[in-house]
């Protein structure tokens, strides 16, 4: 509390203004976000992961594809921190290099899902009526459809490979984004000034881009972050079922799937990629939680 030492009205208001820190939305967000301690730590971890995704493949202690048949399935040691796999490849190096793949799959699939979902959500929310119910029923069907069957179907139709895994995972994300964006679109749309803009005769495209889209951005960002974790998990599950990345790519789920046959003789083959998945997903989820708390105007102190 500041007791203002002033001697007249003008000075008082002047002082009040000066003493109120000018809070930009970002500064306000940052202040709230810093208070989310777990999320704050996760943020740095995610930054670290992204860094690893770029430099990881270049700093691996061993070649990630070069086999060493003399040295298969050896446990963690000073030489191989996380042991070696069935071909004698260094697991630590592969986990490190795999960061890129998991993040790539996670980010691109959610990005695609977000683009598709945002588009559908805005269209549904803005135009309403028939288009709205058509889009939303489609999303319901997609949501109720067992994901695995969908994935198997998509991958069977498109063929195996990382690219198609991304598409399959992206399709999972579309309906959720559509729903979220639709509801924020409805909220933004109902505010008066959009009504006003509409009556001036601005074109729908312009209204959507200039007014509605910015209003939905914060919920998109929050859900985007939270979704990355589950996208990485879904991709890993697909690899686990043999529908994911192609060898010899060090995708974590594929590594785990290959390792489960050795579970009781060489558990490290399964444990380390599992931990990598867990920690990465955890970081994104915690970050998402923190972003939500910091961006959601509903949560006040």
């Amino acid at each position, binding site marked *: 509390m500041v007791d203002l030492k002033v001697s007249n009205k003008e000075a008082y208001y002047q002082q009040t203004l000066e003493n109120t820190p000018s809070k930009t939305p970002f500064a306000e967000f940052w202040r709230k976000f810093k208070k989310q301690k777990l999320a704050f730590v996760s943020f740095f971890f995610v930054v670290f992961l992204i860094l690893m995704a770029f430099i990881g493949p270049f700093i691996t202690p061993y070649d990630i*594809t070069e086999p060493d*048949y003399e040295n298969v399935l050896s446990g963690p040691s000073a030489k191989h921190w996380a042991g070696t796999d069935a071909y004698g490849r260094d697991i630590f190096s592969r986990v490190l290099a795999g960061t890129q793949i998991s993040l790539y799959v996670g980010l691109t699939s959610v990005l695609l899902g977000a683009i598709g979902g945002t588009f559908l959500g805005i269209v549904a929310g803005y135009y309403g009526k028939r288009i709205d119910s058509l889009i939303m029923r489609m999303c319901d069907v997609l949501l109720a459809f067992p994901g695995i069957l969908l994935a198997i179907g998509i991958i069977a139709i498109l063929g195996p*490979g990382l690219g198609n895994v991304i598409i399959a995972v992206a399709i999972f994300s579309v309906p959720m984004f559509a729903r979220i964006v639709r509801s924020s679109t409805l909220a933004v749309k109902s505010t008066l000034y959009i009504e006003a803009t509409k009556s001036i005769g601005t074109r729908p495209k312009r209204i959507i881009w200039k007014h509605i889209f910015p209003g939905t951005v914060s919920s998109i960002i929050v859900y985007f972050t939270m979704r990355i974790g589950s996208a990485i998990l879904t991709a890993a599950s697909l690899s686990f079922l*043999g529908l994911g990345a*192609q*060898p010899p790519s060090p995708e974590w789920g594929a590594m785990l799937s290959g390792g489960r*046959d*050795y579970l*009781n003789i060489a558990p490290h083959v399964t444990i380390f990629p599992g931990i990598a998945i867990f920690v990465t997903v955890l970081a994104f989820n915690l970050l998402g939680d923190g972003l939500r708390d910091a961006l959601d105007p509903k949560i006040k102190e």
Partner: protein
Amino acid sequence: MKKTVGWLSALAMVLVLMLAGCSDSGKEGSTAEKGGDGKKAVKEGKDLTIAVADNFTTLDPHDTNDTLSNSAEKTMMEGLLGFDEKMNVVPLLAEEYEASDDATEFTFKLREGVKFHDGTPFNAEAVKVNFDRLADPDSGLKRHSLFALIQSTEVLSDYEVKFTLSEPFGAMINTFAHPAALIHSPKALEEYGKDVGKHPVGTGPFKFVEWKPSEGLKIEKNPDYWKKGYPKVDAITFKPVSENGSRIAMLQTGEADFIYPVPTEQVEGVNGKNGVEVDSEPSIVVRYMAMNTMKEPYNDVKVRQALNYAINKDAFLKVVMNGQGEKLDSVIAPDVQFYSQQELYEFDLEKAKELLKEAGVKEGLKAKLWGGNSSSTVKAMEFLQQQLAAVGITVEVVPMESGTLSDKIWSVQNPEDAELELYYGGWSPSTGDADWGIRPLVGGKEAFPPNSYNVSYYDNEEVNKLISAGLQTADENARADAYEKAQKLIWDDAPWVFLSADNTLAGKKNYLKGVYLLPDGSLSVSEAEIE
């Protein structure tokens, strides 16, 4: 901030503990390797549990095309002939048999005094009913094709029956020994019709009790079994457990007395521990990488041979098969009838590179390798990828889900359009005869997809002739001669990279005797015994 660090370190602790728990067992494994604990596990009662990898599809042998269901059927039903543990044909319900020289007529003398579980006597009439069913093209049975050649089945007397084929088929004796030729009680066939697959009634050592997909198959001792003194256990339960790790764990914890298959990776870890023994025996399963001989550059025999030289089979056995198998030295495995050994393509990178150069193949050849998406198949393909990289071939591994893969292989109508370049697969000739090990895979145009499994589109006139020569006679020597020549030709033409012959791997508690896998991967429990 402090708190966060606290939570993170607590989490790390938990993970470390889990790790410790897991690596403990790893250590145990390594001590067992050295000598094993040698302790005899103890079994109470005479009921066995056998964990298998999949659900049975049916219990009607005439309509079965998977070895697993055959194994179950063989516990309850018997055929005229059967296989011993080396895949030799032995008499079962027939005491002796005769074949005409042109391999068109087969006469069997039947065992007397045998009764089906429902009390129906076993006789020539029962045999006729069964084979008439199999030979009927309208029956819709999956195994009809094996017996389509049977023109007539005659009852010569109560215990004598004669089959006449429409054309010579030298491998027919093995077909009679095939599990598809198990014999139903005629009464059951009449009573249940198509549903006989849910109500199997045979002459075997065990009687059917119950079969539910969720709980598996239960069978019990047939006290009136014709072979005196057998069976020696009271009941057997088969449980489908698809996850390898779970199956192993069931054996270790004693929930199962016998499991199969044991994944090759696990053999070392479980053998000799917790009273578990792993039986590893040669099988008739062959592993190969087929090359499309109609496609550039694999239409050049030099390239195909080069690939054979380029792959280190010892390393393949060690890394992919975990030592559980042998190098494949013919197109069929040693336990298949009329097998003849060939001279190995020894691992020789220089020679491989030289041959490739002679064939005009440049560095950086790109190839697609197709295969299934099970972890063991993917592992083998990844190994092949690594090996071929050493001779400058960049392989893209394309694991496919079973339905997609079969579609890719069999939807080809015109051999020239086949997309397939390289294919990793395995084959087990269920009749145990050279014919079924060779003809479907490399038997010329007749066997091209979609007709059969000749995915290398291999078509050699001479080989084709030898294959049909082998079928024209029932004379063993003449057949052996034909197949020996055929195997040599195929080996030199190298439509495949010949990789390995698998071992069958079964895990059992060490008190169990007399349960074993045949080289075709089917199970025999009739002599099961608990010590």
